[in-house]
Every structure is written in C-alpha cells, then in structure tokens.
C-alpha cells in the first residue's frame, strides 16, 4: 500500500500558486478550486483598496512600502495616508540582542477610514523597502470582510480568500484561516502588557540598521495599546456582519458554528502577568498577580454579565514558589528543543497563558444586551451566557465539559426566544438529570431563575477565596505552574502556535498530563 501524501492545508500551500509576478491569482486553500489567475474584469469586482487601486491599474507592488505608495497614487481616499499607523511585533524582539532567537521583527502598518471601523488595510512585512513576504488584509466594501493577500519574491500576488471563506466548509481552518478561524483580524497578545509587541510596557531596542532606524515605520511606530483598540474595532465590524448574516428571516442560521465561540475554544489569545520575569527571578517582588483571565472568563462574566471578579490581591503567586516550580521542571525558552536562555527562566513577562480569544468573547458581547440595557430583544441573555460560562468556570479555555453543551444547539432555529429555549433545552435534557454532567451543572444555575446572578456571584467569591488559599500554600506556585503548563501544551497543538517555536517557556519534555482547576481551587487531572 503506497503512502498517501499529506495534504498541506497551511499557508505553505499557497506556494503552489505560480504565475507572472505582475498578476493576481485566486487560490483559496482546500476550497476545491485550483489556483486561478484573475482577469481585469474579475479584479474590478473586488472591493478592497489594494484591488480597486493598484491591481485595477495594473500595478503589482514588490515591497510593503510600495503597496501603500501605489494605493496613494491610485485611490488615495479609501485608505488615507494621514491615518497611517505602524506597529512592531516579534516573538524574539524582547530577547537580548546577542541571543540567537532575537531580532525576529515584523512591521504592521494600518490605515483607517472611519472611526470605530478598524483598519481598511493591514500590511505586514519584515522590511518596508526590501523584497520578502508581504501579507495584506484589505477590507472589501462590496463583499464585506477582509480579502487576504500575500506575495513572495518570484510569485504573483495571491488572493487567499475573504473572511467569509473562513466560515465555509472546506476552506474553514485552511490557509490563512488556520490562524484566523473566524475570518477576523487578530492580535493574539491583545491585552496589557502585550508580550512580543512594542508598547509603553516594552519599547523595542533602537534598530542598528541605519535604513531601518531612520524609517518612519520604525521611528514613528506607536504602541500595541493602539493596535489593540484597532483590532477590537475591526473584530466588532466583522462580527456584526457575521451576526447579521446569521440572523435572517427570524432564524439563527448556522447556529452550531456561530455558537462555537460560546461553548468551545476555537482559538485563544495570550495574556501574561504585568511583570518582567527578571524581577520575579531576582526576588525583587515577593509575589505577582497572575492574570485574572487565567482563572475564569473575565471579559464575559464581568463585562457582559455584570459579575464581580476576584481582585489582584487574591491572585498573588509567591515568587519563590513559582521560581522553584520553573527550576524543578527546567523551564526556559527553547528553539528546536535547545534552550535560548539558561533554565530556569520564563517569557519576558512572566506567566504567559492562553485566555479566551477576543473575537469569541466579543461575538457574545454583540449578541448580548449592552451595559445598562435589558435582556429583551437580544439573541443571548445575560442569564444564558452566565449559566453556560459558569459550567466548569475555573477553566475558561479548553473545557471539554462546557464544549459538550454545544450538542444542544440546533440549526435554523427561531431567533425569537432563542436564549430561553436553549437554556430550557439544556436544563430539561435527560443528561441534566444525571449527577456530575455539564447539563446538570448548567441546570443548577438556570433553574435558579432570576437568582442566577446571586448564585453565580457566590460561587465566584468562594472561588476567589480558594485561589487565595491555594496561592498562600508553599506549593501554590507549583500547582498553578502545572495547570498553566498543561494549558500551554494543549495550545501547542493549535494553529496559533504554528509560526514560532518559542512562544512559551517550556520544560525539556512536556508534562504530558492534562489538568484542570476545580471550583475549590484544586489542580486535578482531567478525566
């Protein structure tokens, strides 16, 4: 029996697209369609600034700066030059300059047209003027969503799909949609202290190349705190469209895929403690606050459901205990399995862990009532969101228990009364009558009716006290390290990790044990 070739569904598959450098080829990985050169007429039907400007004029830029220059020449008002902002990201950018892993750096340049809409175009490249991989996300006014483009030296420009292709069978999860699973622009390190990004928390060292040092993309680069806000605007823009498209003729279309964001973990963001690891290592601080999103779904439970969260004083990881845990497991940043820094060590900012992705939590926020508004008239009620997210709530990501609730979502169901019906369906299911099932856990809160909020708050308060007690124990730092490491190892298998080897600090061999947190703050094996 001959070996079957493994199908490449990553962005690497785009290398198969060939053609004249001065042309545009459409190739949506795993869509069933082969690479296809686009005619002038087909290009004219695209509604994004790169296609409407340069491509429609027969211009095919070979540098990232050229992309923007040609847009200015051909279609200056769609992505105006005075809105330009540049940002710098690089997984190696916070390593010492003489470290072999240092220096990986990508420029992201955005241009916006409307306040609150997010960028019209995002250009990513390692150099403004030189040739190399150029990736562009350009908003299509005609089709809505981003068009995903890329080119490399010697290749034509490739149109790798539109945001909508991320949600179609076949192309979903393939090509650029491997790391953009909902079609959204992403920033995986979305929140303070924005590890890997130039920000007010971590300016990148001055470039030594005079060309780069003098280039405005470097010299005028602004902080990740602004890119965070641009990405949030952009995510809201595409999520609103997703939601509008899903709610047609009074029905919730494609509900199982839409509500993946609710119950499961299609992707994650990364969050760390707001402290440089070196300060923990040297014992300059007795303890540091672990990020609240490590312990529960902070964005949704606080921002949407109005619940109060444990404060940083309850989340203090003892520095000594954490250092000892890292030493015990010989943790450090590694590339190809080899240490980049002597162990024990951590990432630039300590305690980097996965958290629920903004693109998922914000979809819930858009489907839920705004702050101060009543539940009526929205697809998802606060009660439904809280009751679902409080199932296995100490595990805000990668919870198989919570994901099991997705089986109760049916397609093309009426939007009117959706929350009540779904909640009743879960709480009234046969599984809800069996002790220990996710449905039973859901039902306990759901059946409290309007008392859900007090009950949920009580559980969170009790959990906060339990975390405090855990972290006060001599082995508390070790326990949260093991849980964090378990989650990191699960994320290692997700596409978000595919581009760099040393996203996380890791032991030489994986722990290999899947762990979970319990509501009384015990770290336990899964299963």
């Amino acid at each position: 029996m001959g070996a079957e070739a493994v199908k490449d569904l990553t962005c690497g598959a785009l290398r198969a697209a060939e053609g004249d450098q001065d042309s545009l080829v459409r190739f949506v990985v795993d869509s069933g369609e082969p690479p296809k050169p686009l005619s002038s007429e087909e290009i004219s039907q695209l509604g994004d600034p790169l296609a409407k400007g340069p491509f429609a004029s027969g211009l095919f830029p070979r540098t990232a700066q050229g992309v923007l220059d040609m847009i200015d020449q051909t279609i200056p008002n769609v992505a105006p030059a005075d809105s330009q902002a540049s940002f710098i990201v690089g997984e190696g950018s916070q390593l010492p300059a003489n470290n072999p892993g240092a220096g990986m750096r990508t420029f992201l340049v955005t241009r916006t047209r409307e306040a609150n809409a997010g960028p019209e175009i995002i250009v990513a490249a390692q150099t403004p003027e030189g040739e190399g991989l150029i990736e562009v996300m350009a908003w299509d006014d005609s089709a809505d969503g981003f068009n995903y483009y890329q080119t490399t030296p010697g290749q034509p420009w490739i149109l790798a799909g539109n945001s909508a292709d991320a949600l179609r069978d076949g192309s979903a999860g393939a090509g650029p949609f491997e790391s953009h699973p909902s079609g959204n622009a992403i920033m995986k390190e979305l929140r303070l202290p924005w590890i890997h990004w130039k920000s007010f928390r971590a300016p990148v060292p001055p470039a030594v190349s005079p060309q780069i040092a003098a280039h405005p993309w470097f010299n005028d680069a602004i902080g990740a705190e602004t890119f965070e806000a641009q990405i949030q605007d952009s995510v809201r823009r595409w999520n609103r469209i997703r939601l509008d498209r899903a709610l047609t003729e009074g029905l919730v279309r494609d509900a199982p895929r839409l509500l993946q964001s609710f119950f499961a973990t299609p992707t994650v963001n990364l969050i760390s403690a707001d402290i440089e690891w070196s300060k923990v290592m040297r014992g300059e601080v007795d303890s540091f606050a672990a990020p609240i999103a490590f312990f529960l779904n902070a964005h949704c439970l606080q921002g949407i459901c109005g619940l109060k969260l444990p404060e940083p004083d309850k989340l203090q990881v003892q520095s000594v205990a954490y250092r000892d845990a890292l030493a015990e497991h010989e943790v450090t940043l590694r590339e190809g399995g080899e240490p980049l820094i002597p162990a024990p060590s951590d990432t630039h900012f300590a305690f980097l862990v996965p958290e629920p992705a903004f693109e998922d939590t914000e979809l819930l926020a858009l489907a839920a009532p705004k702050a101060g508004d009543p539940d009526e008239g929205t697809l998802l009620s606060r009660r439904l969101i809280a009751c679902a997210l409080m199932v296995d709530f100490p595990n805000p990501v990668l919870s198989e228990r919570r994901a099991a609730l997705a089986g109760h979502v049916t397609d093309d169901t009426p939007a009117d009364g959706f929350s009540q019906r779904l909640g009743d369906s879960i709480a009234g299911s046969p599984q809800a009558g069996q002790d220990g099932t996710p449905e039973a856990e859901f039902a306990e809160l759901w059946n409290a009716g309007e008392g859900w909020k007090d009950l949920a708050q009580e559980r969170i308060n009790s959990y906060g006290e339990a975390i405090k007690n855990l972290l006060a124990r001599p082995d508390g730092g070790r326990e949260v390290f093991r849980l964090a490491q378990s989650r990191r190892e699960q994320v290692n298998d997700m596409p978000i990790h595919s581009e760099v080897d040393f996203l996380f600090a890791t032991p030489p061999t994986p722990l290999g044990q899947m762990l979970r947190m319990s509501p009384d703050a015990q770290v336990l094996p899964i299963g």
Partner: protein
Amino acid sequence: MASVERFTVPGALTDAVSVEQKKLDDAWHQKVSDLVSPAASRSRSLYDPTDGEDTPSDPLRHPVRWPAFPATLNAVTNSPERRAELADSSRDRQDEYCEWSVDRAGPSAEDPITRVIFTTELPEYFEVLHETDPQAALALYREYVDENARPEQIAPGDAYDRNNVLNRQTTGGKIMHLRSGPNNLFAAVTLASDATVLRFRDGAQVTSPQDLVSCGDFGEPLRSSDPQIAAAINGLATLGDKITLEDPIGLYIEEIRPEGLELPAGVTLEDCWKVERGTAEHALRASFSLPEGAGTLEDVRVRGAPVRFGAQLADLVRVRIVALSHSRGSVNPETAGCVPE
C-alpha cells in the same frame, strides 16, 4: 548643523501681559537652562543644545508616547470601572505627565459629565510666569479656571503655589497645570540624564524598562511613561548616540485616538476635541465635549461603555516627549551597577 540658541517656551505660548514677551521668554530660557545644563554636565551622552553643542539638521527623532491613563492602577483592581473611578478621584493618581478635571451638568457627582479638560502644562512654567508677570498668571486662571480667581488664591504669601486651591481639583474644570508629584520638567530632565548611564548587573546590561527603572532607581516601574522614556534614552546611549530633548522641551498632548470611541450620530471627533493652549503640534491643554445640543458625555461610549469618568477618555489621550540623537558610536557612555549596589 542647527544650533539652538535659546530654549523656547512650550507650545509657542505668548502669555505676557504686563511685561514684554521677551522678558518672559528669557526667564523661561534661564529656567530650562538651569535644569538641562547640570543634567547634561552629569552625562556623557546628554548635551545642552544651547551650550555650544550643535544638533545636525537631520537628527534621528525619537518620539516616546504613552496613554494619559495611570497604568499603575492596572495592578490595583480587575474592574475597568473601578480603575476609572480611582483615576478620577485624585490628581495625585494622575501620574503620567497628564492630568485632567471634569465638568458636570450639575453639582452632584452623579450628574453626567459634560467636558473633560486635559493638561500637560508644566508647573515650572507657571512659577516662571508668576515670578515674571503675576498679572499674566492670574489672567490665565481667570480665563481657564475661575473668572473670580484672586491673587492670594494662586500665590498665598506672594509665592506661587503649584498646588494652589484652584489647581488641585478633579472636578469643576479646576485645572491649570500639572501638580501631581512626579509630573514636572525637573523629573523628566533628570530621568533623561540618569537613563544615559548603562546599568550592569552580574556582568549583563540591564535594558528592559521595568528592570532598568528598578536598577537605576528611577521610580515606579509600573508607570507607562518613565520606564519607557528611560528605556528609549538608555537604548540610544547604548548605541553611542549624542542625545538631547527636542526644543521646545516639554510634555505634549499628542492626540486623542479614535479607536473604540463611539460618538452620537453626526458628531465627529473634530467637533469634540479642542486644543485650548499650545499649538496643534505642541498641544498643552485640550478638552473634550460634545457640541451644544448633542447631549452629555454619557452619550459617548468608549470601548462600549458610556463615559462616566474622565479616565475613560484619558485612556485614549496620548502624551509625548521627543528625544533627538545623532553621531552614533561617537560617545563612550558611562556605566554603573544598580542602585543601590
């Protein structure tokens, strides 16, 4: 080469009333010189551009920017609303070289906000102004803070008080210039000078912002301004640059970012954001309010939440200081261990 003969007043202000503007300009030059000259004399890398050291016409320009919202509050609470409430509660909390005060529709703290006034004006400038032209200082207070301001309110016992009763509130629009402890030009210039020393611990250079601030004893590592300024200057010093601060030396309001800001229909950001002192390029005082008849700031949302605190807008306001550098590799910077070693 371009030389700077005199330090010029921040934001091209022309505030003199009872004396010639030149007298005020001279006094300000002297004040800045008194700060920069000793700071430069302590450093191999930082120079005083008015003291014979020319700056080329095309130096590398290094703007350092940060949000006005006090970053230290992130460590205090996980609640964005509580953080905003704390930031609004005291000017002492507003420690990122930008302070603000809010105006409300009525006398109660529950009344909706109608205007937020931000300032990066230096206390040193007002001390010089009052010393040179007390009438001008009083006139500014009457124009911007309280039309009934009296001389003894801003200068009890004749000496100007940067923490005076008309400049210490967070409400009523009672704000003239910076007053929080770390928010002054002396602190910024001293930091720029001290940060030119390369710090070493156990043979390795300390470069990351929080670590550098701790090692050099530059203050609070969780602020967003000082650690970043220190790291930027230190990075340039490491490359052997000659470094100075761009004239007019000062802290400036660069802009209010539009991201996450939802305005009522038909209202633009330009309708709301007004530079009140300084220039567009060197703004020192700016305010945010809706056009008349367009409602209160509760009709504006920041990241989805109605504006109930000035701090929500402070999160969008960017503050800036600019360093200039040139002659890379020409300076052998001073080195030292951590403080205290």
